[in-house]
């Protein structure tokens, strides 16, 4: 049985998870008002239209805020402290994730630093993370 914290996709969210497997950040956009939003949903939270679609987002983002968790979930496979972050996507939505592929220190993790989407695979799932980028395109 999978660990209870391993994300379980639903039919409505499957395109996002398929995107993770393909290495693409796939989120929703409203065809009616143009709002990009996350998490996936069948209705636009901005204008209530159900004329919504998934699209491949740029993956560009910035670091809004974070903590450095001292004892991470064992699933991550390391006892070293690691970040839990609020990430602001270039398209607008805010989401929870982690910044990886850099030192997990206050010095290395500067607020508003440019990030880009990256994907980390575990036995049962591939999840969205972010890593430092030179600058957003």
């Amino acid at each position, binding site marked *: 049985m999978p660990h209870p914290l391993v994300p*379980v996709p639903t039919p409505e969210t499957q395109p996002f998870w398929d995107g993770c497997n393909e290495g693409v950040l796939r989120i929703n956009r409203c065809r009616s008002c143009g709002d990009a939003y996350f998490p996936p949903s069948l209705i636009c939270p901005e204008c209530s239209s159900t004329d919504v679609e998934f699209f491949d987002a740029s993956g560009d983002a910035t670091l809004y805020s974070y903590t450095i*968790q001292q004892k991470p979930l064992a*699933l991550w496979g390391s006892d070293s402290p690691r970040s839990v972050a609020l990430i602001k996507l270039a398209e607008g939505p*805010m989401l929870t994730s982690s910044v990886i592929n850099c030192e997990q220190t206050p010095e290395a993790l500067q607020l508003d630093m440019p990030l880009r989407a990256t994907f980390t695979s575990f036995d049962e799932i591939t999840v969205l993370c972010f890593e430092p980028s030179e600058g957003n395109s």
Partner: protein
Amino acid sequence: MIPPGATAIVGAAESTEIGKVPDLSSVGLAIDAAANAMQDAGITAADIDGFTCGYFPVADMSRQLGIFPSWADNTVVGGCSWMFQLRNAVAAIHAGYCTTVLIVYGESGRSTRRLGQSGDAGQKGGTGQQFDMFYSGGQAAATFTLPVLRYQHEYGLSDEDLAVGAVSQREWAVDVPRATLREPTSVEEVLDSPMVAWPIRRAMCCLVSDAGGAIIVTSADRARDYPKPPVYVLGTGGALEAGVMSPAGVRDPLRPEFIRTSGNAAFSAAGVSHSDIDHLMVYDAFIHTPIFGLEGLGFVDYGEAGHFIAEGHTAPGGKLPMNTSGGGLSYAHTGAYGMLCMLESIRQVRGEAANQVADVDIALCHGWGGYWSACSTLIFGASAP
């Protein structure tokens, strides 16, 4: 609009023991508290016709207590569920659906790992389980606290100033016999406590306790016949925002609109203003939540509350006594603290608190649920206008 003071609290009690209660499950703590509240009100189950409990199947718990209600609610929005339930009960009584409501809570957060209670925010396939909890393991100290660093960065609040909140609340707890932590502490001690999720240290996190609590609310007409002085419900508010167990869903984490919405509703319904508030409770699951509460409720401007607390205004002797039981950081915190938060407000209005503030005519209680998924604001008064 429900007139301020249309209903009143006539029974209020905690479980007989709180803190570490290894011989009771969540169910036992709830029933113990319910029995204490009925005794406090001088009534029995036969006098109660409305019921809500939140963390248990509502029909199961009412039957165990011998209550056969004609109105029931079981709104669950996390830690402030029982505050939402009080708001709903006030409306139900005003509408004539019932006359006397018992609101029951129990949580063995420490000893039995919540044995006997229901409610799971991380259900398989749920939004939080898919998009938040994997990153933190669902650890509140690493997730609920995410806005803290941004706040410190935007408003220049040092770790030392942030730590004062924990020191102030311990100053209150020193004089509270039922508080878990009563030894005075210091900024240095708070900052030297083990790091949990930088910048959050252990002494900035709530306790993990066992406790139950219950309140009984009825119409103002009936309230006069009860033994204890009525604690009138002057105004209530409630709002939802983040949706899942992360502040990511809050539209502006430094100016969360749901706090303002809830607070405005309560102030408007009560017909009072900030300067009328003699005593304040702001649910402190972590050290930062009173900061955001003070700002969102409008007691100070955005960006000012961290320094306001650091200057001692909410500590003993300060102009705005807040979290006088010691709060979730020093008194007790089970997992869902809203009931314990309300009970301190009620004790203060009754004049029976351990740290009794002089002349509390009007008290405000603000709580959170599901991290920042929900909040509720209640204003209580010693008299009806």
